[in-house]
């Protein structure tokens, strides 16, 4: 790690990189704060901009977007009562009541400091743990990698909104998209229809921007934007938290941090779950659980520390195993592949300097976010007042431009519009989006490891005879059948 310091410092102090870090963080915060947008969408839209950058600059820019997005999500929750993204759902429950009581400044300050603590310390832990996890990963074969990918997808299914069939259907769409092009190992053309644009498979940017960005905006327009939300601007002043109040929350912060880090580490899980678990843990541990939901500061500390601690947690399997901790890290794995960085245990040997740059960047961006948020607290209400009729056309144009930059072809921009139709269908059918992202990005890894495993042993039984693989497969299968299992358990409890 220490040997990489000169490279890391040289990258972080470059004026262009610093400028991109500040711009990325600001854009990320804006995307995170506005309900309907997210840091994931920011990474998706601006990823093609990094194609002309060197790997270090690209890492700094993409991570700034991601961290900014994660750290900005609480703004909408506190000021509007509408979460900026799924990671800040439970922040609404106490953040907005505090805001309604005229304590917006305090609620926002808690969100800022909680986000900083979660992100900064989880990045440091990730930096120390990842190489150790990577060493363990050298012992893993294609069976374990297949099982890990399988678990990553199925765990998202287990927590996906709506019924299980919809989550699975979304994952199947992802697998189908991942199948297009020449198959791994056998090089058989699949679903290419003699079209040269399909031979190399579907581009990640084209699919994801079409399915998520364009369709979301178009559907929002179809539903009608309505009036801009009312935001309380008067009580957004000062920070209003004292050291004594902070000390009171140390137990809550520590518990939430560990919950966030642990859930982030699990493949496929992320801040969307950790904030909910941390909130309920804080409520259960509290002496005044009835005060939750009425503006209890602990109800902001817990989810905000946890969802940001999931960042570091998710980075460990991302760097060490090449398995994403959540949908944004799945995107980042794809983006880094474009820059020639194959995440996984070998990355520490081949590109260790970039991996450690990632961890340092997250820590530095966490500090930058805190500074920007402290000085920009009065601007938060303005972010939520950006008129839809300017913001959405701009995002649509950027989506199309990104699709063009990604592929260098307007034909693929047309394809992106076709994927937007898929996205509209998914919104109509109520299919969740996270399983598609994970299945589409993990599909090639899942398939190539599955085929390699069969080539080595010629039997599916090996997936269950190797201990790690067996445990993962059982967890994965358990996740698929979790709704049925939950129903049976509930019935047994009721009968007793």
């Amino acid at each position, binding site marked *: 790690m220490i040997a990489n310091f000169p490279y890391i410092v040289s990258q972080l102090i470059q004026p262009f990189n610093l400028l991109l870090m500040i711009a990325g963080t600001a854009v990320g915060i804006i995307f995170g704060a506005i309900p309907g947008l997210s840091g994931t969408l920011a990474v998706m839209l601006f990823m093609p901009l990094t194609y002309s950058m060197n790997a270090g600059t690209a890492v700094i820019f993409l991570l700034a977007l991601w961290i900014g997005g994660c750290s900005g999500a609480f703004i909408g929750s506190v000021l509007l009562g509408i979460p900026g993204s799924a990671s800040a759902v439970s922040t609404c429950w106490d953040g907005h009541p505090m805001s309604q009581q005229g304590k917006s400044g305090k609620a926002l300050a808690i969100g800022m400091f909680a986000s900083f603590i979660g992100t900064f310390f989880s990045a440091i832990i990730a930096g120390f743990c990842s190489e150790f996890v990577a060493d363990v990963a050298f012992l893993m074969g294609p069976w374990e990698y297949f099982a890990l990918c399988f678990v990553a997808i199925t765990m998202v299914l287990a927590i996906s909104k709506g019924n299980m069939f919809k989550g699975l259907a979304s994952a*199947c769409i992802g697998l189908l998209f991942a199948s297009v092009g020449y198959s791994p190992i056998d090089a058989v053309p699949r679903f290419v229809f003699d079209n040269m644009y399909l031979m190399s498979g579907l581009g990640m940017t084209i699919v994801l921007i079409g399915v998520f960005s364009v369709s979301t905006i178009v559907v929002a327009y179809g539903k009608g934007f309505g009036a801009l939300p009312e935001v309380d601007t008067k009580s957004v002043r000062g920070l209003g938290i004292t050291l004594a109040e902070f000390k009171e929350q140390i137990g809550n912060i520590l518990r939430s941090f560990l919950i966030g880090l642990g859930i982030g580490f699990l493949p496929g899980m992320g801040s969307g779950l950790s904030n909910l678990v941390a909130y309920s843990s804080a409520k259960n541990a509290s002496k005044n659980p009835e005060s939750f939901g009425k503006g209890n500061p602990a109800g902001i500390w817990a989810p905000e520390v946890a969802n940001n601690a999931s960042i570091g947690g998710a980075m460990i399997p991302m760097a060490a195993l090449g398995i994403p901790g959540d949908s944004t890290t799945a995107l980042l794995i794809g983006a880094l592949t474009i820059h020639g960085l194959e995440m996984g245990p070998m990355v520490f040997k081949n590109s260790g300097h970039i991996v450690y740059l990632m961890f340092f960047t997250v820590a530095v961006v966490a500090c930058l976010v805190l500074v920007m948020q402290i000085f920009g607290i009065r601007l938060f209400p303005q972010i939520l007042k950006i008129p839809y009729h300017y913001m959405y056309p701009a995002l649509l144009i*950027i989506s199309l431009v990104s699709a063009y930059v990604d592929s260098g072809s307007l034909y693929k921009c047309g394809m992106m519009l076709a994927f937007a139709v898929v996205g509209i269908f998914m919104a109509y059918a109520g299919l969740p989006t996270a399983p598609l992202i994970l299945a589409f990005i993990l599909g090639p890894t899942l398939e190539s490891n599955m085929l390699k495993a069969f080539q080595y042993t010629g039997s599916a039984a090996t997936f269950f005879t190797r201990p790690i693989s067996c445990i993962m497969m059982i967890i994965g299968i358990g996740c698929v059948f979790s709704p049925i299992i939950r129903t049976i358990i509930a019935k047994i409890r009721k009968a007793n």
Partner: protein
Amino acid sequence: MKIKRDQAAGAVLVILGIIVFVMTNQFSVPFTLSYPGPKALPMIAAVGFIICGAGVFLEGCREKPEEEKPFLTKEGWMKVLVAMVILAVYVFAASLIGYLIVTPFVTYALTTLFAKGSSSTLKGRIIFSVLLTVIIYVIYIYVFGLSLPSGALF
């Protein structure tokens, strides 16, 4: 009888599954238990579509026959269609006459469309459309050295 959203979505998924299944069976490398080959992944997707589609359809049938809130009104679907057509025209026009000429017009059309019912001025929309076009152009071309469509006619 009015078809529910889940029923329609389930039926589409089942049909998609059948199509994928039939197409997958045409791949030359056979599927065997000792080596599933290139058919495995799309086959998993196909079977998944059929099972999930049937599940979603049946869930839709089980739901109470209460009035389901429509996903979009007729007017809403028209808005979606118009927005998609504008984007398709944008892609086609950009391939002919390039990014710089088409983008301000399309941005203006979109802002005007999206601004219906809210307060915005003609001047504001025009300035925004031109500014957005120029800012994106400068960032992509001069800052990052990327290329944007120049148009087949130029």
